[in-house]
């Protein structure tokens, strides 16, 4: 009986205390025709040794490819201490800190997280996190509609560089409350927003992703001021690591962005096939009551000593029910714990080094790739750690050939290849990729 401690004596004594003759009696309120006899579709149980063997085989089966894919999830070195501590039972097996006095560890960790992420994004307040970056944009859009009461159109504008999957998720989650999402036109040579833009009627918010999905750096000051002049709020979608080098959303334009969201994964969370990650969300103080999700505040106890507790709960579903700011219940507590430890270990100087190394590695990779015949950068201009390159032949076939050589060569944009070389790549790794690419392009000529 896996993980069930009962001895036969225990079971007998417990049934006697209940006044039942068998465990089946305990289910006698269920209409008998509904009871099933067995679950044939579930295999019989495995011992820990057996499942361990199976999982090792399957993990090994997926190989250990050399990965140059980014596109919203990034391979970074995670210091050993991060997950050693985050998986301590006291963090791992606790729940939402409803009983604050018995949850100060989780609560203080979240408060420290909120501090770090507001520092990084240059905004006033943070929640305790959302599910991931994409759903974070959906929640930010709903929040903008609640906050910007003057704009009644329900129209959310998207800069051309917003991750297309984020848009899909935002439409799926937020598209049922009279909210629409519209893309602004792109300047074909820079990949950024066109020079001339039309905001249309009463836009609620403009979403600006920096760096953009295809890796370009948008003129965030111009777009922020443009949106604010038209009564729209500005939602920044940012890679938190890039903020070690790039202007923080709170400093965009004259007034700064109003809300910042993004994928927290680069801050110490493993790639793990796409999750669990965490979405961060920060905003200006004036919007705090429209924020979704858990928020931790510092207060005092009966002895006037400082302590931490969940606060502003009147916004939330367990109090407000159908009138809540969101249906969200959990945050991504464990991921936030890991990110807080990660940011503490690296500090700003460490994050800067990681960001710089990633930028320099990507620059090196792109320099070498574009020296090959038929390979060019898709857009001109500066980049952070991801660049779109065009090939003189279909991207998919090249990627497939690279994968055969155990190299994941990037993300297929359709008309181009999006490559990323983080700090985890050595000069030899980059050479290896470039050599393989040279070979493939030569063969397929």
């Amino acid at each position, binding site marked *: 009986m896996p*993980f*069930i401690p009962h001895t036969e004596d225990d079971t007998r004594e*417990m*049934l006697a*205390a209940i006044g039942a003759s068998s*465990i089946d009696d*305990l*289910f006698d*309120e269920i209409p008998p025709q509904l*009871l099933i006899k067995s679950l044939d579709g579930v295999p019989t149980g495995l011992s*820990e040794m057996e499942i361990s063997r199976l999982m090792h085989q399957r*993990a090994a*089966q997926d*190989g*250990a490819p050399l990965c140059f894919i980014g596109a919203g*999830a990034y391979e970074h070195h995670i210091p050993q201490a991060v997950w050693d*501590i985050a998986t301590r*039972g006291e963090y*791992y*097996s*606790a*729940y*939402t800190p409803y009983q604050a006095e018995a949850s100060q560890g989780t609560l*203080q*960790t*979240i408060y*420290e997280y909120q501090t*770090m992420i*507001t*520092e990084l994004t*240059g905004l006033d*307040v943070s929640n*305790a996190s959302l*599910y*991931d970056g994409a759903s974070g944009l959906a929640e930010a859009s709903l929040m903008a509609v609640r906050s910007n009461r003057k704009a009644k159109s329900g129209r959310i504008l998207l800069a051309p560089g917003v991750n297309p999957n984020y848009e899909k998720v935002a439409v*799926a989650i937020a598209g049922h409350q009279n909210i629409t999402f519209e893309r602004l036109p792109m300047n074909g040579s820079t990949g950024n927003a066109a020079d001339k833009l039309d905001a249309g009627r009463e836009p609620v918010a403009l979403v600006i992703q920096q760096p953009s999905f295809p890796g370009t750096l948008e003129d965030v000051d111009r777009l922020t001021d443009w949106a604010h002049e038209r009564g729209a709020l500005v939602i920044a979608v940012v890679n938190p690591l890039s*903020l070690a080098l790039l*202007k923080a959303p709170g400093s965009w334009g004259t007034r700064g962005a109003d809300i910042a969201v993004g994928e927290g994964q680069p801050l110490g969370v493993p*790639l793990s096939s*796409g999750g669990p990650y965490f979405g961060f969300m920060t905003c200006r103080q004036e919007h705090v009551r429209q924020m979704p999700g858990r928020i931790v*505040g*510092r*207060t005092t106890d*009966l002895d006037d000593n400082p*302590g931490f507790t969940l*606060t502003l709960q009147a916004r939330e579903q367990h109090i407000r029910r159908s009138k809540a700011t969101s249906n*969200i219940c959990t945050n991504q*507590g*464990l991921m936030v714990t890991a990110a807080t*430890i990660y940011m*503490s270990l*690296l*500090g*700003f100087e*460490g994050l800067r080094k*990681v960001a710089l*190394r990633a*930028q*320099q590695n990507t620059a090196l990779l792109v320099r070498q790739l574009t020296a090959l015949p038929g390979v060019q950068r898709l857009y001109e201009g500066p980049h*952070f750690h991801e660049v779109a390159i065009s090939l003189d032949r279909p991207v998919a076939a090249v990627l497939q050939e690279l994968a055969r050589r155990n190299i994941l060569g990037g993300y297929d944009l359709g008309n181009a290849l999006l490559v990323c070389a983080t700090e985890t790549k050595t000069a030899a790794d980059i050479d290896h990729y470039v050599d393989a690419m040279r070979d493939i392009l030569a063969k397929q000529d």
Partner: protein
Amino acid sequence: METLIFDKSRSGRRAFAQAPVADDAVAIPESLRRKDTPRLPEASELQVVRHFTRLSRQNFSIDTQFYPLGSCTMKYNPRACNALALLPGFAGRHPLGPVSHGQGFLACMYELQEMLKEVTGMQGVSLTPMAGAQGELAGVLMIQAYHKARGDLERNEIIVPDAAHGTNPATATMCGCVVRELPTGSDGDIDIAALKAAVGPKTAGIMLTNPSTLGVFDRGIVEVAKIVHDAGGLLYYDGANLNAICGKVRPGDMEFDVIHMNLHKTFSTPHGGGGPGSGAVGVGARLLPFLPIPVVGATERDGVTSYDWLAEEALPQSIGRLSGFMGNAGVLLRAYVYMRMVGRDGMRRLAEYATLNANYLQARLRDAGFKLAFPERRASHEFIITLKNEAREINLTAMDVAKALLDHNYHAPTTYFPLLVPECLLIEPTETESKETLDNFVAAMTAIATDAKAGTSFKEAPYTMPVRRLDDVKAARQLDLAYRPPK
């Protein structure tokens, strides 16, 4: 309070092993570059390790305390599930990596889908929702999509019992539906007459938890399903309490059309201080085309099974994508390992022993003088006691008992939920707790009641925690949500 990491920070201190070497030249135009220096901690590796280790010790957790938080299923999280999900091949796999480099991972996901179908009696499963509340959203969106696809455009009402989790009505609102609240009968079952009056041509569906949050199995479920279906609505099963029935009775057999499962409850993935969760959804035949994408598909050729993603092309009527990639894959791997270890027979024992523990604890507390909210009913895997009398007679509230329990080294049960039972404690022991633990918990509850009767006040409890009772009103009025050093 532990000193904040920011106050332990010293300018210029580094945990050097963590940062790579990099050239300091920033290849970014001046106008886009960051000029200020955010105040992140500057600390040594040991300081960071010690700080967060010390913080962790201020938490109650399953690994350290009995945690009978009703409706949250705080059972033991087996260590193997975590370790195996973090094997380098899994932890390091990029979500956009080709399926040629993901067959091992995808095999686990496909088999997980199949096992969840079997356990719930459903026809299809999508693993992508990232938490129970997102599973609910997916479920209601599928119900809407179904009606819409049939041209049945007037159905915008979702019926929700008054005992439901707050996420149910909040979800229905997010989907643009109107919430219609349904009263519960005095025996804890749904008021059938009220249901009959509530359904009609505007009914999109009903969201039910069964066993309900009142800790009882709704005996009228077959009739409930018939009434809702006859009215043209669909039935949504909130899987929060699936641990109570796993392997005994299946939502599909109860005629539910869609279900979300909280894998962090029934299938024992970590609660992690409030997440990550995972809210996989299962559907009956009618809702198959609308499942959120991506879903894992399998093809057999020459005796070899290969796995692939099914996305927009395969499921053109899907309600769409709910996460940046495919949901909380690492959580799903942990659930997969758990289900494979527990296996077919073990799955049934989850419900059996969870139910045994709940009914035993209920009987013992009743015998110790506590009042049950539904004394005539069997407990499911959880039950409710009400301190209505104690609150009136000896000024002992549910909150007082919750806080006093912390001093006895027990996490408190869920308090003041469901909202319709006054001064209630919702208690869920789970199957992984031993009889001794339950007996000791009864002794603690008895001691608290005895002390209260003798005149002890628990208004200022707890006394033995890292902090005393906290001022929530001050927390909300004088917002301090981030540390800023004094200027």
